[in-house]
């Protein structure tokens, strides 16, 4: 273990930048699990799906992956709405969501991943864009643009989501449906419709997160699995649905992972996020900025 | 007279909301206590704290000479504390007889009493008969009306052979004669030595059953005494008329 200040600073900066990206990845789960209490364990698979969509657009038409993802967002929204409708009719209405709902999403995880494998194979795919390659050198800190750009757009995404949740009627209805469905009904708002919209938004974020992912690193279908732990760890640590909390938790995790990988080696990295999760669940299930 | 249930300065908060504010109450064995108060006054929270479903931050609860603090809910049931839930919570995957069987197996059984197969069946039938549900012994809870589910709740609490039974709004929605039936049942239980705490909104039932009345408003105990005296208390009148 070679310790140098240089290495330490870079590891921390790297962790913060990746953390921003993790926050975008988790934002969807903050919506579905943190606010709506739906354990969508398949979310990482939809992110990978987003990566592949960005890949196809980029490889075939040369479109910038982020632009492609933005264009694909409505499609992902519809996908989310459809999935929620099925989930609602099959499970939520019958009160079966704990065992069977969980199994449903687990199944979706597999179906999505395996379908991608059958279509694209297990080779790593990557995208091409102007900002992939160059690195900013700020003194002793190296900031690869391919990480900086997703970081910035991630923060933008979170800011937009937070605005939606706090300033728009739909957003506040979504926050309300988590707390008091009856009150919503009395206001002539259909809770099911609100939840459908919320879940749609949740999956829509996966489209963008997927683009960010494939910009940062090459992607193959099983990459999603390592994100399951990260996403739920951040969601719980961040207080289950608090977007600011998600950002803080994500950066925290990013830094710890980065430091572990730099000084102890990358083979310990998966244990970090999952270990984080266990620690959070054991010590403070309400998270940092808990609800 | 030493108390069967002694609650001392019990407080419970939910975040910033104070649900119970330094409640103290001493209930001797054999008491017929009525607990009333407006909705949201903390009655069910108090029950949950006594029974261990919720943990109180301050204060203590002593039952039959034992401190209950930190004890799991099931241990409190073993000691002789039983309650029915305000919103019935039957075991949905088993029939009524099996629902009654659970406390017999796990509470009565935990007290070192050996119950043969035959005896268990008999007690299940008896208990169901006492609440008028013996005809539906092999039915599932989903086949029951709301009223029947409340009766099942009560029967299940009784099956635990408690020293103290807390009936949490067991009579909501019942007809006049059904209320009478439940009251008769509770009186008979009391005659057999079971202390009963009745939480109800049906004033006629509360007044006829209770020998002592406690009023809870906004988490505070504002009255505790003989029913006639309590109902004449101006603060109680204010609490109810002011709603």
């Amino acid at each position, binding site marked *: 273990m070679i310790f140098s200040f240089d290495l330490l600073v870079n590891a921390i900066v790297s962790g913060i930048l990746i953390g921003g990206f993790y926050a975008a990845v988790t934002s969807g789960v903050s919506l579905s699990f943190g606010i709506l209490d739906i354990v969508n364990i398949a979310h990482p698979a939809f992110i990978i799906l987003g990566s592949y969509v960005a890949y196809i657009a980029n490889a075939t038409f040369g479109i910038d992956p982020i632009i492609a993802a933005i264009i694909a967002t409505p499609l992902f929204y519809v996908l989310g709405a459809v999935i929620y409708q099925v989930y609602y009719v099959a499970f939520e209405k019958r009160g079966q969501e704990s065992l069977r709902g969980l199994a449903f999403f687990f199944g979706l995880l597999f*179906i999505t991943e395996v379908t991608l494998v059958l279509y694209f194979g297990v080779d790593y795919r990557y995208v091409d864009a102007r900002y992939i390659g160059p690195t900013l050198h700020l003194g002793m800190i190296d900031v690869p643009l391919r990480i900086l750009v997703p970081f910035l757009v991630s923060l933008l995404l979170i800011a937009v989501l937070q605005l939606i949740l706090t300033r728009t009627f739909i957003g506040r209805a979504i926050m309300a449906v988590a707390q008091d469905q009856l009150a919503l009904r009395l206001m002539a708002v259909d809770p099911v419709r609100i939840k459908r919209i919320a879940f749609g938004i949740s999956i829509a974020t996966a489209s963008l997160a997927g683009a960010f992912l494939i910009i940062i690193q090459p992607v193959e279908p099983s990459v999603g699995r390592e994100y399951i732990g990260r996403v739920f760890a951040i969601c719980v640590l961040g207080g289950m649905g608090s977007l600011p909390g998600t950002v803080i938790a994500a950066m925290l995790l990013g830094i710890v992972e980065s430091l572990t990988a730099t000084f102890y080696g990358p083979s310990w990295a998966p*244990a970090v996020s999952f270990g984080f*999760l266990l620690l959070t669940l054991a010590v403070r299930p309400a998270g940092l900025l808990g609800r | 007279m030493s108390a069967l249930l002694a609650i001392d300065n019990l407080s419970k908060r939910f975040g910033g909301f104070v649900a119970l504010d330094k409640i103290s109450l001493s209930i001797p064995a054999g008491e017929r206590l009525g607990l009333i108060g407006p909705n949201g006054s903390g009655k069910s929270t108090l029950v949950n704290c006594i029974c261990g479903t919720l943990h109180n931050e301050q204060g203590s609860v002593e039952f039959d000479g034992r401190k209950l603090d930190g004890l799991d809910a099931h241990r409190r049931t073993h000691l002789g504390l*039983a309650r029915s839930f305000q919103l019935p919570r039957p075991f949905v995957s088993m029939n009524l007889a099996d629902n009654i069987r659970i406390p017999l197996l796990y*509470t009565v059984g*935990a007290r070192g009493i*050996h119950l043969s197969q035959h005896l268990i069946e008999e007690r299940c039938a008896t208990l169901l008969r006492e609440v008028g549900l013996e005809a539906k012994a092999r039915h599932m809870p989903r086949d029951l009306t709301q009223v029947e589910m409340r009766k099942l709740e009560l029967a299940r609490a009784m099956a635990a052979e408690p020293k103290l039974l807390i009936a949490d709004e067991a009579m909501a929605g019942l007809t006049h004669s059904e209320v009478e039936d439940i009251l008769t049942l509770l009186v008979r239980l009391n005659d057999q030595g079971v202390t009963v705490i009745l939480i109800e909104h049906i004033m006629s039932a509360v007044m006829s059953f209770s020998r002592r009345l406690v009023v809870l408003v906004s988490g505070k105990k504002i009255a505790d005494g003989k029913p006639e005296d309590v109902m004449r208390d101006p603060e109680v009148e204010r609490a109810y008329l002011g709603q």
Partner: protein
Amino acid sequence: MRTPLFFLMWLGIAAVVFGLALSSGNDYVFFAGYVVLQYVVLSTAWNILGGYCGYVNFGSAAFFALGAYSTVAIYKFITENEFYRLPMPVLILIGGAVSGLVGFGMGYLTLRLRGAFFAIATLALAVVLQTLIVNWDFVGGSRGAYIVRPEEIAPIGPYIRYLFLCMLLLAVAAITIARLIEHSRLGYGFATIRDDELAAEAAGVPTLKLKLIATTISGALMGMAGAPFPYYIGYLQPASTFGLDYAVNSIAMPLIGGTTSWIGPLVGAILLGSLQQIATVTISSAVNLLIVGLLLVGFVIVAPNGIVGLVQTYLRRKPPEFVGRRHVETQSPETVP
């Protein structure tokens, strides 16, 4: 039918199955059959915690792998140094003990968590365990571990037949344990935990204790299923041993078969396991998982009570219920929990 009779009956069926396999003259039957039987044990084990208690364990692979790796550790320590080889039943028991202990530990840490959090925690534990094993060089780390399998074992013949027999007996033991639980006070207790834990506590059911029992038994059985695996496969690799594939199968098989009794996991494992063996040979192993995923999602939506549920509904024209267990008496607290 009392449990001892049940056990003997299934031993008889197992003997018939073994005889049929022998008469086929094709050792492939043993190879494929072993995998199916392994899934019978895994599904039955998962169902004890998942189906009976309602607690979803995503970490089945970890317990399975622990059993496998305890065998590897013993192999590296003893057999490779040419002391002697521990007989398979002993290895199975050791694997079971290790996994049971870990199951208990995991339960102790996580069972106070609400349903969904518990499930996620199990996933987390599985990954943490996997990372620990991958970084443990004694058992080969990420490079994997080789086990030299003996060619033959008298009087059975090829070693694979011996492994098949062991797994067959383990499967009979597993379903017997499951049935024993169902017909005991424990089975009632588990059902109340599944239905309404709060009401169960109020009725006097010691929910934490029962859940710990469930996780320990479940973990132990999974470990036992994993213990012979290194000898079966010859080369053990953490990535595949800890793979989510085991997790999805041990969840899919009981859900497709039916979760309320021991029959469901058996049916699910035999049907789905055989289907996968055929698919792997004829199509590809990736399609395997697709089939499992599709069937899981399909059944969970359309037939929540599984195949057993469908059959029960068809036969009785009534939705399936918790079948009344008639022969339960209370016992003194020191014996049956």
